[in-house]
């Protein structure tokens, strides 16, 4: 009797408590998704009513619009560059910090700090350091006998320059890796030592396989975040020079909100959505191949 009452109140409470989340799914995911698909079939500046033009926006994107293709290349370059360099940097730092080091907490805080400060602020500091004539980075290059580099104005260097900022900001990954490394059983590592294995053996056969789920998690999360990169392009390069840093989210922003081409920008958004969906689907499908879960062996 009382149990039944409890069950009924469970259902009512659940839907009551979930109402905000369900409204969010409806108004911030599903309806906008339908909306963006609808708008992508129109030509619309936001002032007069939209005109239906079918798939013309998509056709243009694949034929006459040179920006779209450039932005795909730039987005992939940026995301993969930032993720791979960021993972290598943060994993190495975590390995270093995982040793017998005094003041580990303080070091960890230092590496983590860039992750939480406003990215506009960081972008401004970096743009000042990258400055070609008076910037400190070119000064150091000069000291070492190299020529000055137009970091943010040179097609070749603009992308590596903004990737560098993303790597600097990836202190969150260090913290996750460090926590994971502390979970690697010492006994396994000692066993390798007893068998005469060196640092590389321990790393390759114990640390790396045991850490692979965490590496996968960090890879996926930072890939999704960096594919949506916007601020570096907005604050530092405006997509240039010669569209070399034209990140896709920046392009959507530019077309939609600076040029008021809502139809065109919506078509870009739809393609961006498919692009991310396919990519994450592919990564999940192949994740079994390259991550190792301890429980599978036991």
């Amino acid at each position, binding site marked *: 009797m009382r149990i039944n009452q409890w069950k009924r109140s469970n259902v009512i409470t659940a839907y009551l*408590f979930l109402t905000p989340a369900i409204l969010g799914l409806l108004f911030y995911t599903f309806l*906008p998704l339908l909306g963006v698909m609808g708008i992508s079939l129109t030509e619309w500046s936001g002032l007069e009513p939209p005109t239906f033009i079918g798939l013309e926006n998509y056709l243009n994107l694949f034929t006459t619009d040179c920006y779209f293709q450039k932005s795909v290349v730039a987005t992939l370059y940026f995301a993969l560059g930032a993720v791979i360099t960021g993972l290598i940097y943060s994993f190495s730092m975590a390995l270093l910090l995982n040793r017998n080091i005094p003041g580990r907490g303080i070091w*960890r805080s230092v590496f983590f700090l860039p992750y939480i400060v406003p990215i506009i602020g960081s972008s401004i500091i970096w743009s000042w350091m990258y400055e070609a004539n008076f910037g400190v980075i070119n000064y150091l290059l000069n000291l070492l006998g190299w020529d000055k580099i137009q970091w943010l104005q040179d097609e070749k260097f603009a992308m590596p320059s903004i990737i560098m900022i993303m790597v600097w900001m990836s202190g969150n990954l260090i913290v996750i890796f460090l926590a994971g490394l502390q979970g690697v059983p010492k006994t396994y590592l000692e066993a390798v030592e007893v068998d005469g294995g060196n640092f590389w053996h321990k790393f390759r056969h114990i640390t790396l396989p045991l850490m692979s789920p965490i590496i996968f*998690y960090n890879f996926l999360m930072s890939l999704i975040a960096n594919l949506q990169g916007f601020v570096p392009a907005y604050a530092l390069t405006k997509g240039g020079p010669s569209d070399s840093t034209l990140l896709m989210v920046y392009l959507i*922003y530019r077309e939609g909100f600076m040029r008021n081409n809502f139809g065109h920008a919506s078509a870009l*958004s739809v393609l961006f959505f498919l692009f991310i969906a396919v990519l994450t689907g592919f990564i999940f499908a192949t994740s079994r191949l390259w991550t190792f879960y301890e429980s599978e062996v036991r």
Partner: protein
Amino acid sequence: MRVTKTFYDWVCIVLITIIASLVIFPFFWMVRSSLMSNLEINQYPPVLFPNNWQFDNYPYTLSVFPFGKYLINTLIITIPSVAGVLLTSTLAAYCFARLEFPLKKFWFTLVIGSMLMPGAVTIIPIFIAWSSIGLSNSYIPLIVPAYLGGGGFNIFLIRQFLMTIPRELDEAAYMDGAGHLRILFHILLPLIKPVLITVGLFTFILYWNDVMGPLIYISRNEMNTISQALANFRSGFGTDWRAIMAASTMSIIPSVILYFIGQKYFVEGIVLSGLK
């Protein structure tokens, strides 16, 4: 037991010190530049410390960059948003952790799956909807999303934390006649405080640092957030580097203070999110 340091430990310490100095260097360079005259900033070769410290750069910058106003604007968006995220994500997390109801799996998958959805995809229709009801130049579009579920990631984190708390507690309270609201807010809430602080801090940082939202919705200068105002200041004041650096320093200080106060929770939260 004290382990003696090997040669490799010393190599590590040296490496870490060098890299940590490089990581902290941009902050040092910003503060140092904010205390120089423009002449000295543009001096080549650059000097490490100002020859005479220009502390009046800050009053000067405040006269052209009303930081206090931007700070209040940012707080007006951030504080209600943090409250909304905490409230609605705790409610949803409680459902998924404790209640049995039809379609539970379905909703859970949708809510968590929506976390992978890139926000940029839907900004255009959402912006058009807000402007069609005349609210596009206000803080409302920036705050409302926080009250609509609070994000799949936060719901997941709080749910994971709730699952570690024994159900017997709820059952005992229920036997004493407590309803769901009472169980959640009087019994469970104090126990999940750590995860709530973590979620609150990360949400705060997320909204505090948001660039895209204010950029799209807020056009009037007196309504700008710190990040937005800083970006505009940078493009408007071109080469007045001492003011730009002072403004950047001021903009970064609140985050740094918050970070050092809540450090423990930041680190725990990051670890929790990565290892669960």
